[in-house]
């Protein structure tokens, strides 16, 4: 008996991973084109803004533009420097984040681990809804109701802790300070941070929490040694997203903050003097000369790059913190 020749299957069609038929190619082509549109939009934003901003960067000098102070078009040559605004943006955003983080984590912990189910459900809906409130509405609330209340708090803070340079106030007027703007921003970003944190908490491995309790851990040690470390990456990412939102906030800060262009306010958070890049753009855009427009575009570029960096870090951290997502 001769050995049979090994059976060889002849493939009826080529087995390929790539789409082979025309409609499929079109389908995947559309999807790819749409996906690349995100790249196109982002780079177009950068390119066009830089192009329009170039005259300002050129006449002012990049470092001077970013770190110098003063914004005056009546001088010759005109001065367009955003140092105080940029510092003010970070100051307000930092105040906002400092207030927002403990509250957001508390409310997320409350919803996920303490509250009874029915209450937790409605609180979740409330937080998610509040995360969608437009900032202009919060700005209206801030300027017409909250400012006066918060000015009272600021006055009290000043009367008790006024000997600290941080809380000193020489203007005698407590309205329109970075402190108030920071609080308004905090109200805006608390729901954002809270809903991200809550989501991270809810997707945590329940087993390790139960294990911690079974090993004799109490609520507090479980929170401090198990829940927080496990969720830290996601929470930090959420905080950075909130920070990015706070940096880019325009209208609400414009309503409640006194913009001072030619003088840095480094840390006196109760003085009615501060800045924010986005609000600068809004404040100066209306009656801007072409040269000033270039300066505003440049301010936009700086703002965009700053938020882009923060968001890139945030998304990296969040992705690292949620390995199950990929």
């Amino acid at each position, binding site marked *: 008996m001769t050995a049979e020749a090994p059976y060889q299957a002849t493939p009826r069609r080529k087995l390929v991973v790539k789409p082979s038929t025309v409609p499929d190619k079109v389908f995947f082509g559309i999807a790819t084109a*749409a*996906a690349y549109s995100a790249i196109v939009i982002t780079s177009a934003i950068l390119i066009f803004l830089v192009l329009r901003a170039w005259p300002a960067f050129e006449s002012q000098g990049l470092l001077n533009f970013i770190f110098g102070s003063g914004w005056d078009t009546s001088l010759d040559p005109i001065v367009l420097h955003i140092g105080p605004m940029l510092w003010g943006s970070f100051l307000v955003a930092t105040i906002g984040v400092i207030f927002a983080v403990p509250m957001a984590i*508390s409310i997320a912990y409350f919803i996920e681990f303490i509250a009874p189910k029915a209450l937790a459900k409605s609180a979740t809906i409330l937080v998610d809804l509040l995360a969608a409130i437009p900032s202009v509405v919060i700005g209206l609330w801030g300027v017409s109701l909250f400012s006066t209340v918060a000015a009272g708090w600021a006055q009290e803070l000043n009367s008790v802790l006024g000997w600290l340079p941080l809380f000193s106030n020489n203007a005698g007027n407590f309205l329109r300070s970075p402190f108030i703007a920071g609080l308004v921003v905090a109200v805006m970003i608390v729901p954002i941070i809270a809903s991200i944190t809550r989501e991270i908490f809810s997707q945590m491995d329940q087993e390790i929490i139960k294990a911690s309790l079974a090993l004799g851990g109490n609520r507090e040690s479980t929170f401090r040694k198990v829940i927080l470390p496990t969720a830290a990456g996601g929470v930090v990412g959420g905080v950075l997203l909130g920070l990015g939102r706070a940096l880019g906030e325009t209208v609400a800060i414009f309503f409640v903050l006194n913009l001072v262009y030619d003088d840095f306010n480094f840390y006196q958070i109760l003085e009615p003097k501060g800045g924010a890049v986005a609000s600068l753009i809004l404040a100066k855009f209306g009656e801007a000369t072409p040269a000033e427009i270039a300066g505003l575009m440049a301010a936009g570029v700086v703002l965009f790059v700053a938020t882009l960096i923060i968001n890139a870090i945030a998304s990296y951290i969040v992705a690292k913190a949620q390995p199950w997502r990929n």
Partner: protein
Amino acid sequence: MEKLIDLSPVERPANAQPWAKIQPRLKGVIALSSVLPAVIALAFLLISGNEFMGVLFTVFLPLQILAGGFAGFYGFGRRGILDGLLLVVTYFFATFVLVLLVSVLWSVIENGGKAISPHFFYQNNVYVDPTAPLEIGGVGHAIIGSFLIVGLATVITVPLGIATAVYITETQGKSRGLIRSLLQAMSGLPSVVAGLFIYALLIASGITQYAGFAGSLALIPLMLPTVSRVAEEALRLVPKELRNGALALGAPAWRAFLQVTLPAASSGIVTAVLLGVARVIGETAPLILTTFSANNTNLNIFEGGMSTLPTYLYNYVTMGFDTSLQRAWGAALVILILVGVLFAAARFATRSTPAPKAKKRK
């Protein structure tokens, strides 16, 4: 003989039996510790007449922390102290922030309710000066403007966003990770920068004047990340077996997507659209930079001034009269109602999902 192993019993922690009934005495202590600080603080507030916030943070909070720690110590020994503190701090902050947020909602509803009347919804703003009483004038033109501008943005963004989500979930493209992180980064794009971009691209270069569609274009980069992220989430939830089954039955990929995956994810896609609209409906800064506000109703999105609800609100706040502020509150309430309706619709759409929701984690 020397004792090698210490067999004497370890001290049994007081909370070793979490399932045991809470003793009535402990219940009493807990109740007392949660009421007493509030009573003392209230009495102090009434007697000394200090500011509420000051008393809240300097009298009530320390007292409450002490009381919480004591209740924990009483019930569960030393290990209970920090538990009590954690609970007190959590409850305090959670209540504080909920009160703040509800105060935002309530103030809008209360003040906006005074400004709103039927004609506020359908009249426009012609012949209305900032100090005019609320009997005339309304936001009708701004509602129409908002719908037109956001509508055009939606028509452009939704296919783009869904196709992007398709690229991320359905294809084996090389740059999926890059696109995802880019969208993530775009979601933090400052809205004023989006407005500046369209201004630089279209208006400063003289391609067009201020017009509604420029505003729509400015909203696209703000809306795209939301739509594609939620749509991606929805497509990811469709069980792999469904699309593999379709492909195994010989359907080409586009057919498998359009006839199997997309219907299965339809409620999620609807949610994506609604959340995207909710994200941009209150955007103010980009519209201020790209559209020109108007008092009359304008149906032509390609020409002329066009007011939207947020820009109307912004204009009336900056005018600074009492009546103009009232109109602003009214507009804020209308925006809030729209956002609320969108949210309710989104929740409804998610709830009526026929397919069982797969667990997110593998």
